[in-house]
């Protein structure tokens, strides 16, 4: 069954769209006026989650067990007393940047990635959280992790192996990709083949900037990342990465990426000019699709603004469900395609800045 709800986490609330017959229509707004950084619809527990960033009052976590009719605030993950990011810098949870169920084998397990770089887990569906100490104490953290865009490093991606809940990957900006095979007790650095052009040694072991890390759900050893320094793909579960950026074309710098749910060869990115000019190339919004594992990229512009676009798409603001893709932009546009990006329709021009977009079936 195709997914019929679209969750937009925006600077002014959580906004839902619902598909009825052939069209997507506005459904509801939750937390009006409050920045929602991420939402997550947990099929395992039938729980909706919303991550809020109040600014004045800190980050908050809310959950709903009745499909958004009522929301309850639960205590957000906190860094234990006395912990420091670096010497003299207290560890404070500044941002929830990744949120996922821990896998079908452990229904009530949650994994949460944060700025400044801590991974939290809950074994009781969010009643309590524990900091992953093995990762926090990783010898690379204090010296080789650093902030990219934020003051401190952050975990924005968590990819759980659908075949083994104890096996998962995280993406950290800036540190790179880390893998655990034993439910977070030990961590392996998985940055071989990546390039960090912003460092004196671009081939450093740790210090890379994957903007978003994904695996193909049907073939999870095939992984993709939109990195600060291009698009990279792995066919061996992140042991090695290959640069599949388009050398003379737009598919290069960007934040987000989507991977086809069944076809590990097919992926989409939404590029900007570069890290120093964060606008679409020639002010023309383009989605780039590859259907051969990144060997070739085709430009998808049909239905997208081609003259005066300043839209950038944040890392969590593109999603795919079947043949349907949707993305929201920094300038408040929501675009949707029902045919794998061949044609796009603007659903709304007047949204707040969109932080994240997720499909769900309700």
């Amino acid at each position, binding site marked *: 069954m195709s997914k019929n709800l679209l969750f937009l986490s925006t600077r002014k609330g959580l906004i839902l769209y619902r598909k009825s017959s052939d069209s997507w229509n506005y459904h509801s707004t939750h937390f009006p006026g409050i920045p929602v950084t991420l939402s997550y619809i947990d099929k395992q527990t039938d729980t909706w989650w919303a991550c809020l960033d109040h600014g*004045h009052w*800190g980050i908050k976590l809310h959950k709903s067990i009745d499909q958004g009719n009522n929301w309850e*605030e639960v205590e957000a993950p906190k*860094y234990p007393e006395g912990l420091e990011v670096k010497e003299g810098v207290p*560890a404070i949870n500044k941002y929830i940047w990744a949120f996922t169920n821990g896998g079908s084998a452990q229904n009530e397990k949650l994994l949460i990635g944060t700025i400044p770089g801590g991974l939290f887990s809950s074994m009781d569906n969010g009643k309590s959280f524990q900091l992953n100490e093995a990762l926090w104490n990783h010898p690379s953290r204090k010296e080789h992790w650093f902030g990219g865009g934020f003051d401190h490093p952050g975990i924005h991606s968590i990819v759980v192996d659908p075949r083994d809940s104890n096996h998962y990957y995280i993406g950290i900006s800036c540190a790179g990709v880390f893998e655990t095979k034993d439910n977070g007790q030990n961590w392996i650095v998985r940055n071989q083949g990546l390039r960090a052009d912003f460092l004196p040694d671009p081939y450093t072991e740790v210090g890379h900037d994957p903007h978003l890390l994904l695996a193909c759900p049907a073939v999870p050893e095939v992984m993709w990342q939109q990195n600060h320094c291009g698009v990279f793909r792995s066919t061996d579960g992140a042991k090695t990465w290959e640069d599949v950026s388009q050398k003379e074309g737009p598919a290069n710098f960007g934040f987000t990426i989507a991977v086809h749910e069944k076809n590990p060869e097919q992926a989409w990115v939404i590029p900007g000019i570069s890290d120093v000019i964060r606008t679409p190339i020639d002010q023309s919004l383009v989605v780039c699709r590859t259907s051969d594992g990144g060997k070739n990229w085709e430009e998808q512009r049909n239905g997208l603004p081609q003259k005066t676009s300043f839209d950038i798409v944040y890392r969590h603001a593109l999603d795919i469900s079947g043949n349907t893709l949707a993305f929201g932009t920094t300038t408040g546009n929501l675009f949707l395609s029902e045919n794998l990006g061949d044609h796009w329709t603007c659903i709304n021009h007047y949204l707040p800045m969109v932080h994240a977009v997720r499909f769900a079936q309700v």
Partner: protein
Amino acid sequence: MPTIQFTYALKRFYPGIDKLEVQAANVGEVVDLVEQHYPGLKAYLVDDQGSLRKHVNIFVDGSLIKDRIELMDAVHENSEVYIMQALSGG
């Protein structure tokens, strides 16, 4: 006993929030006692390490507290404590 008053902005999250009287000798004790009356409110005022959030201000008898880290500013028998948010955005 010292009286504690709250910014109207907190009413959105705690609709019943109202003036309190608590037996406290310093701001840290005030925050802990406020938490007893309004569970969860402490996390709105202080961060993971217990320091006052950057955009929260606490006034004791008209003066902004000096110790935002340990919250050791003294509170007296007849003190008036105001828990406010910093203004931002003009």
